């Protein structure tokens, strides 16, 4: 799937403005306290930033720019990146549950296999040697805890 750049740019502008608006009217008022003293309320600078997002997004929607040299967005990239990020999330959960020693080699293995690495030597380096080196450096030499 791919998207033609100018239309996508216009949509991005609208999306940015919508995010800013959501922050300005819904999130920030609920997530800040009001005080009857002081020079700058907790919500002041966040609201400024959110409304700036609204303004900048609308400007982008009105005069769409920024596709640079590309003609279209290749959404396959986004899908692959999402998959890799999913692996990282899984690894983080595993790390919390079983610790670095279990999760790190698995994450390295999954990432390397996913991006097409098949050479056994390099796989061994990435899956066993590097995590072992990191573990030894951090816990033995620096005496720092790992998850």
């Amino acid at each position: 799937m791919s998207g033609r750049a100018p239309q996508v740019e216009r949509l991005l502008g609208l999306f940015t403005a919508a995010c800013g608006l959501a922050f300005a009217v819904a999130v920030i008022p609920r997530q800040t306290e009001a005080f009857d003293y002081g020079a700058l309320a907790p919500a002041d600078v966040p609201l400024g930033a959110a409304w700036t997002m609204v303004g900048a997004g609308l400007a982008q929607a009105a005069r769409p720019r920024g596709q640079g040299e590309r003609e279209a967005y290749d959404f396959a990239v986004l899908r692959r990146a999402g998959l890799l990020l999913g692996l990282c999330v899984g690894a983080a959960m595993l790390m919390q549950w079983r610790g670095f020693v279990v999760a790190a080699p698995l994450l390295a293995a999954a990432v390397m296999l996913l991006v097409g690495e098949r050479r056994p030597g390099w796989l061994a380096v990435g899956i066993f040697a590097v995590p072992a080196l990191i573990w030894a450096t951090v816990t033995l030499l620096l005496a720092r805890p790992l998850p």
Partner: protein
Amino acid sequence: MPDLAIIAAGLGDAFSPVNLSMAFAGVVLGQFVGAVPGIGPVIVMAIAVPFTFTFEPLAAIAFLVGISKGGNVGGAIPAVLINAPGTPDAAATALDGYPMARAGKPLKAMKLALYSSVSGDTFSDILLITVSAPLALVALRMGPVEVVCLMIFALSIITGLVGDSLGKGVAAAAFGLLCAMVGLDPEHASPRLEFGHFELDNGLSLPGVAISMLVTSEIIYQLATRSATAAAVPLPATRGDDDARLSRAEFWRCRFTLLRGGAIGATIGAVPGIGSSAAAFLSYASAKHASRKRRAKPGAAHEPPLPDFGKGNPHGIAATESANSAVVGANLIPLLTLGLPGNVGAALIISALLIQGIQPGPLLFAEQGRLIYGLFGLMLAANAANLIVGQFGMRLWVLVVRAPASVIFASSLLLCFVGVYSATGDIFGIKVMLLFSFIGVFMRFFGFSVVAFIIAFILGPRFELSLSQALTITNRDPMALLAHPVGIAFLLLALAAVYVFGFRRHAAQS
């Protein structure tokens, strides 16, 4: 005027074998951890501080300053090689360093970064040694009103760094500012945007956000876009000629950029709390501006054309590395004269001084003159060590990145996990890192400037604090600004920057 005998004694202490080897060891360690993505020099300094109590004071400081200086040089290496800066300060180095490395000149780019870094560092060290006392007095006059105006100027520079869409760039910066507001507000210490997480009281951790936006998301984006079984950094088959050499003429051509970078870095460093990332970007933006002007001049035609900024222009590397390194020396001006640290690294140096019974402050030069001049001598020695170690270090790293991208990037991902966990001490930090990795990938894919986000995120807390201070001090009276001419000057500069970088440039394009 300081006593010459004290200066001589201090320099004599500096060049004792023990102290020199401590500085050298610090530089080696600093360059190494600076170059490993995800792990910064600050963690190592924090571990080293309690040990320094058993050292002689000068050796202790030499070691820590060595780590800090080495880390500054090391951070540029992954920025150049894999577009993932080892420290946020080197984020701007990647803008031109990485394209240069992709063009088959990784060694040249790293050499330029190293020499620029050492030049900027030496420049600001000399400034520190000669004029720190008067400069400290000037810095003292910089009150909250002046600082908030300076911050507005620094934020306005972002408009010069975003790509071809001003709207997306400004939106990215505004989002960065918004993220910087998470946590307790400075005036009332009331929790904001925390969604019930106490862990966020101190805000989203800077290492967590910086590593995820600059490193993790970049790694994932690269893994998703390019062939991962090839070498991480392609080197030309014929080695040694144009890549390995950085000719004197090439370096000399950057002299004004270096000087400007040094001056910007030293100025920003002398004012505590703004930091080297801002200096690097200011310097980058001004070098870019200067190059446009130079090109417009007819006399410049006899020089061979350089790549555009963002496509491997050597001035881009020279500008950022000279500026971010110049901050390190100048940061010691408020540190030594006022006891004010400019960043966490400087705060760790203060604690090492304090546990030795040395109180930074106005009496330091009078009471500890010999130590201070010893420190100055060692700072210059550490710069020399940086040059030597860097020569070997960059060759080592070039060897390392000849491994396939799959190995390099998978290992870097693991290091991000470890680095964030060590910096935040919590699995929660890793969750924050993953969230911002998602955001970072999204922003990279759709062409939102990650750099604009990071500058606004780094400057945000100090901007809000200074704004709150300035509003209280002036009792919210806008006319009070008239009593602060320096502040007005910064505001005018900010307007000019927005006009020149923002509107005129974009008008010229359409």
